[in-house]
């Protein structure tokens, strides 16, 4: 009986003493943290994707509080709405950016470019691209080993088992840019988002001369300049034997798509065309 009492008393004394010491230490070493950091973090998406360029959402929140203006800071996942909320919490002004989405600029499925070699080493694009130019004749195209799929935290990129090319699910893509950094061939591009997720872009990054590009892949851009001549908005430029459509200038009129001789310009999420429409465009070109 006596032992029980002594144990209870000594433990309570030790407990309360330690509690008091901990209380004193906690007071002494209290770290002041700006409460606004928590406010900002609360409105952030919490994806910790690193798309903003800072280590996680907390890192971004700290920088938002520290920075004098929010001009250089942008959370691609939260988008403009998210930035407005942050600005409200901090009493600053948010910048608005056009929402973007990742696009894969390669259509070289096995139907379009034949495999010249077989690669069976470590299945990452980073290692394969360090060893050689790729298992097809096109040294610019997608390797199909899926580094972009692995880095995507939002499950927005998947490998198509038929084309062996990655595909982006627009609704899930937050344009954090992880895939852009991961792709050793710089095939992924963040492009301006349009109404109903419609987009037109040159789905090729081959910088070879036309004949060589065509030989390597049947849907390669051969820099024939037909699209440049067709475009009424000066949206298309050709550099290094490769056409590029400026997403800001492009009005999604689709004229370039139908004139491209190699089908390297893609139109996505458009309603199907009427046959007559295509014919008029083609005849117009021929007339010119």
């Amino acid at each position, binding site marked *: 009986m006596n032992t029980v009492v002594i144990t209870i008393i000594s433990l309570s004394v030790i407990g309360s003493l330690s509690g008091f010491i901990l209380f004193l230490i906690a007071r002494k070493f209290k770290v002041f943290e700006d409460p606004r950091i928590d406010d900002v973090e609360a409105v952030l998406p919490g994806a910790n994707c690193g798309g903003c360029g800072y280590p996680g959402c907390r890192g971004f929140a700290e920088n938002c509080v520290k920075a004098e203006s929010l001009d250089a800071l942008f959370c691609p996942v939260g988008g403009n709405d998210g930035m407005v909320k942050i600005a409200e919490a901090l009493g600053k002004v948010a910048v608005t950016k056009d929402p973007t989405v990742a696009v894969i600029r390669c259509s070289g499925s096995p139907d379009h470019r034949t495999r010249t*070699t077989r690669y*069976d*080493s*470590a299945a990452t694009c980073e290692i394969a691209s360090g*060893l*050689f*130019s*790729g298992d097809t004749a096109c*040294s610019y195209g997608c390797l199909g080993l899926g580094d972009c799929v692995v880095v995507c935290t939002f499950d927005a990129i998947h490998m198509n088992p038929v084309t062996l090319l990655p595909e982006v699910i627009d609704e899930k893509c937050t344009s954090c840019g992880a895939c852009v950094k991961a792709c050793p061939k710089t095939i992924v591009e963040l492009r301006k988002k349009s109404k109903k997720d419609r987009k037109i872009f040159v789905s090729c990054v081959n910088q070879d001369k036309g004949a060589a590009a065509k030989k390597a892949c049947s849907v390669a851009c051969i820099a024939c300049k037909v699209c440049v001549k067709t475009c009424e908005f000066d949206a298309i430029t050709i550099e290094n034997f490769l056409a590029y459509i400026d997403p800001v200038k492009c009005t999604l009129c689709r004229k370039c798509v139908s004139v491209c001789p190699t089908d390297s310009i893609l139109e996505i999420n458009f309603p199907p065309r009427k046959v007559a429409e295509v014919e008029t465009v083609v005849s117009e070109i021929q007339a010119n």
Partner: protein
Amino acid sequence: MKTFPKGGVHPPENKKASGSAIEVLPLPKSVRIHLSQHLGAPAEPIVAKGDMVKAGQLIAKSTGFISANIHSPVSGIVQKIEPAPDSSGYKRPAIFIDVQGDEWMETIDRSPNLIKFPDLNSEEIITRIGRMGIVGLGGATFPSHVKITVPKGKKAEILIINGVECEPYLTSDHRLMLEKGEEILVGTQLLMKALRVNKAVIGIESNKPDAISHLSTLCARYPDIRVETLQVKYPQGGEKQLIKAITGREVPSGRLPIDVGAVVHNVGTAFAVYEAITKNKPLFERIVTVTGKSMERTANYLVRIGTPVTELIEATGGMPEDTGKVINGGPMMGQALPLLDVPVTKGTSGIVLMPVTESNRRTTMNCIRCSRCNSVCAMGLEPYFLMSLGEAKRWDDMEQARVMDCMECGSCSYTCPSGRPLLDYIRLGKNSVNRLIRSRSK
């Protein structure tokens, strides 16, 4: 018999072509000379489309200290200068020359006479080696004039000539030692003079007894040079391993052989130095072994740089049907060619045709912590650990784990019972750490 103490493997030697004497390969119709066939900055072309060139004429100038001159290997007309795929498949600038006749520069002495003691001092030898575009012919293609320029405050004590040829299949150095022994020794003496050392050792593995006895006999007349027989073990041809085997000195991590007073050159380089100094002949041809398990004929060719690989294979009787991989270099450190339409470069020591049964990678399985990779690593690294760091992209930690010491000999991947791509991840780590180091120094 001496050897290096740490690690090493002994893959089947398969030196099928060791009995084939060196043949001169007929001139190709056209050659393609890449401007970057040495370590360091690519050379800059000094010829233009339509120019007539002679064999041995300078066609691209070195740009910077670590770079090398490139000379025309043939006489003919410059057809074009444009990017073309190199042995990795990526397009890199190259000079195309259409062959016409075989006219050499008048300055080159084409007689077979042996010239023994040219009267030149150290600086003259170094500048001439630099001018003649000589690079390390063992495979690393490091510009030779850089290697024999001893930095201030350091002193070379011993020259080691690398006749190890530890790569399986390859026999080009072996044949060269047998057929051009005297020339190699004169080249060695020239290198000794350039380095101001009075001692040279030729290291040869014991699987080449004919080369050992031949060079030992010749060495009787060259008292400063001796032949050292080494135990057969891969990667003994690695600079640091060879120094350790012969002198017992260990090159510290991150340092160069010159820090322990040693300089290593390949026998092929010694021969090229001999030709450059005494015959005034720039480096525009080299010995290439063409071999393979299912090939009926194997050969060692004297080939002009820029000759298409396909011509070498054709001359040896064509590609066997069961070929699964064509390797540029030896099977351990060489690189599988993604396309055959590539030219021979200064670094091409062999073309090995592997049958399909031996060219596939094994299925990758889990690491069973058997530690075999650790025990075979000649640099004392932990490949399994480096690979997991590489998978996690922890470049800083890889640098701490001394990934930059790795010479990519491939012993770890060779020995792994789980068939793990250890070297692939280590190489990735080396590239990334290199980038880190460069960004830090900026």
